[in-house]
């Protein structure tokens, strides 16, 4: 039972530095960190103090406003440090890892034949609730809600994105069990987006509505798939889960342990050892990449939506990818001349880069211009395959006009859906940030 989704508008960027399809076991990091800012709008409340011993799966903190939502340790070890930022906001919870993991035992459970409430409780107490995201607003799901559907996208179209087909290859049983568990959380359907490169078994997974996705980026974005399958209306709640996180949930039910395995692809033109690494959530980025200086940008995630990292920091909770690209803090003489600097990709045709559709580009972090007022029209629609007027929505977000935002479809979008819009934008406005602020306003005003 599969339905096809065809996306026509969009842009698949071809960049230098794809990861080789070879899985390597990453060295065990000395420390692992869970970073509360990875969960937008979360206010964490610690349950243990520095120096306390934890098992893998032991609770570290919970959400102040949704007490059921717990966040647990990916490894066993000692709570080394609670790093705080401004106003004592918790930035990082760092655990010094034991040489070997000992797991907290939650007990095996057959999700398919269990009571829905018990399944939910198991997911929450093990900390797997953190994997479940909610649309609208793109925040951690509130367990009190009942989502109308759950969406999983196993399609990667983002530039240099890790190949889900490769990551999930050996994880069939866990994935199926994860789906069985997620199915209990919604009265609606569990939708799974796959494409031609997906692992064969994904097409035989039971209990999901399968969607064959074709087209350029952002076709792989779960938000775009939701929009095409069953768009979000005002008041709706749908949940989304990353495919590899489904297998973590599955393993929880199969083994009774919270096994926070993550496959992280190291990509980008500046990465020396571009491979897939088997590691744990929140590992040190330094263990996966070559030593780099200030002139290289380390991104946890992909180039369009990732987070800037320093060499001594930890990989973000949701990242399956670390990207290394050169910093672009240099001047370019007469960079505005049309048809010059054709080595920089452009979706507009004021650069001749469009004549080389198969060339792999090596982008830097240079802004290639300065921020300006919004002038050019039509460029955003080209890369946003949604029935949403991007420029009008962005302006409504900037103005904080709640009614307009609602009318123009703020519930259907997440910042990541606007990543390409931000990339092509002539006026160099931080559009993902604008959308995020708009969503935050909706959270406080509408909830």
């Amino acid at each position, binding site marked *: 039972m599969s339905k096809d989704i065809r996306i026509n508008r969009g842009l698949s960027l071809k960049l230098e530095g794809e990861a080789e399809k070879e899985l390597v076991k990453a060295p065990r990091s000395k420390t692992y960190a869970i970073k509360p800012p990875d969960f937008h709008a979360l206010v964490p409340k610690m349950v243990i103090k520095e120096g306390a011993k934890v098992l893998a799966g032991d609770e570290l903190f919970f959400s102040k406003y949704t007490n059921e939502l717990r966040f647990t340790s990916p490894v066993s070890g000692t709570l080394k440090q609670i790093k705080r930022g401004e106003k004592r906001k918790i930035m990082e919870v760092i655990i010094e890892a034991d040489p070997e993991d000992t797991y907290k035992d939650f007990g095996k459970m057959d999700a398919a034949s269990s009571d829905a409430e018990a399944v939910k409780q198991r997911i929450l107490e093990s900390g797997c609730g953190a994997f479940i995201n909610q649309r609208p607003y793109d925040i951690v799901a509130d367990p009190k809600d009942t989502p109308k559907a759950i969406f999983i996208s196993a399609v990667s179209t983002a530039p240099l994105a890790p190949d889900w087909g490769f990551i999930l290859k050996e994880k069939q049983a866990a994935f199926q069990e994860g789906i069985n568990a997620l199915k209990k959380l919604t009265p609606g359907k569990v939708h799974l987006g796959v494409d031609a490169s997906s692992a064969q078994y994904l097409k035989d997974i039971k209990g999901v509505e399968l969607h064959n996705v074709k087209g350029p980026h952002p076709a792989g974005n779960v938000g775009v798939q939701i929009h095409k399958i069953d768009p979000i209306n005002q008041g709706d709640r749908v949940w989304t889960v990353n495919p590899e996180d489904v297998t973590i949930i599955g393993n929880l039910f199969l083994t009774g342990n919270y096994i926070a395995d993550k496959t992280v692809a190291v990509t980008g033109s500046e990465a020396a050892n571009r491979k897939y690494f088997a590691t744990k959530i929140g590992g040190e980025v330094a263990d996966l990449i070559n030593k780099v200086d200030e002139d290289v*940008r380390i991104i946890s995630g992909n*180039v369009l939506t990732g*987070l800037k990292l320093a060499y001594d920091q930890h990989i973000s909770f949701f990242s399956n990818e670390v990207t290394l690209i050169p910093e672009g803090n240099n001047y370019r003489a007469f960079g505005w*001349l049309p048809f010059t600097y054709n080595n920089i990709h452009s*979706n*507009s045709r004021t650069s001749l880069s469009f004549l080389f559709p198969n060339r792999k580009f090596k982008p830097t972090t240079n802004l290639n211009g300065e921020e300006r007022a919004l002038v050019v*029209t039509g460029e955003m629609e080209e890369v946003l395959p949604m029935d949403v007027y991007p420029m009008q929505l962005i302006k409504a977000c900037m103005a904080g006009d709640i009614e307009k935002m609602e009318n123009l*479809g703020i519930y259907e979008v997440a910042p990541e859906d606007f990543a390409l819009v931000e990339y092509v934008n002539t006026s*160099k406005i931080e559009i*993902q940030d604008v959308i995020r602020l708009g969503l935050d306003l909706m959270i406080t005003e509408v909830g």
Partner: protein
Amino acid sequence: MEWIRQKLDKIKEPFAPGKKYEKYAPAVNAIDTFLFTPNHTTQKGSHIRDAVDLKRTMITVVLALVPVMIFGMWNAGYQYYSQLGEAFTFWEALGHGALKFIPMIVVSYAVGLGIEFAFAIFRGHEVNEGYLVTGLLIPMIMPIDLPLWMLALSVVFAVLVGKEAFGGTGMNILNPALTARAFAFFAYPTYMSGNQVWVSEASKVDAVSGETILGSLAAGDNVSYGMMDMFYGIIPGSVSETSTLLILVGALLLILTKVGSWRIMLSAVIGAIAMGLIFNALPSLGIPGNELTNFPWYGHLIVGGLAFGIVFMATDPVSAAQTMKGKWIYGFLIGFLSVMIRVFNPAYPEGVMLGILLMNVFAPTIDHYVIQSNIKRRKKRINADNTQVKTAV
């Protein structure tokens, strides 16, 4: 280049934040970023960015204007010498036109950019590049003999009232270049229309008739130019408007670079043809019509400022409709109304200026209704959803 960079950094020191001349930084930055694309890097969100920026976009439009401009200068000289009956060379013709036209460009840029810089400093934002195009368009659509002070005044009006009063680049409702022309048109009608203004120094030499084709048609006279002359542009008129051929070259560049909207251009041409065909059909309906209504529909496309207006003015992204569907409607109506005004009102032989300005005013309304249909679709979905739930319960 490295040496210039170091000099610039040195010059910029007193303008840095917290320093003495911090306030004037936008002015220095404007010059700096003209020489060098800055070293600014992304901080969050998308870490990589497209090569395009507003400067590139605007310069592309300027490039598209250059062939038209050079031809226009030559044509100004050609019209002058040929009507006098003197012998002349290509370079003399170009020289005569350039001598007239380059001061206009200088005045337009000096006055317009002066105001832009002042507002950037006053408002504390960077100088936007929009005026690079506007500043070239304004002299191109004025009669070549227009006194420079009138040009300067028109520029002041266009930039202050047409643009900055609405909040600056990106916020204006009317096309600034056409605002300047409309201002001059209504403030100094004798310098802007009639049969004395469209050939260089026609008013000083009695023998010269500087009448444009639309002007003679409106007066009921016969047109002494062939269709190919009109297409190549060897006819009286402002610098920009005469050569349809080179306007098409510019249009091609705008469309290929995706800087100008082909939707607006195409729909405007369709609109103009539609109106032209309606007028041409009058005789067969038993209405004799006049010189203007009987002027063939394809002729409307190549005389007057219609082609230039459609390619370079109607496609101004700020004052045009911003939605895809809106652009089709907006373009069509510009073509349709321009020809209508041109034919019905002999006092305004050039209808395209008024046609575009009128549609500039209506563009937000068109967009509003296009967007409303999107909103309605969304609301309908909610209602459908609710009824579903009800029936399920």
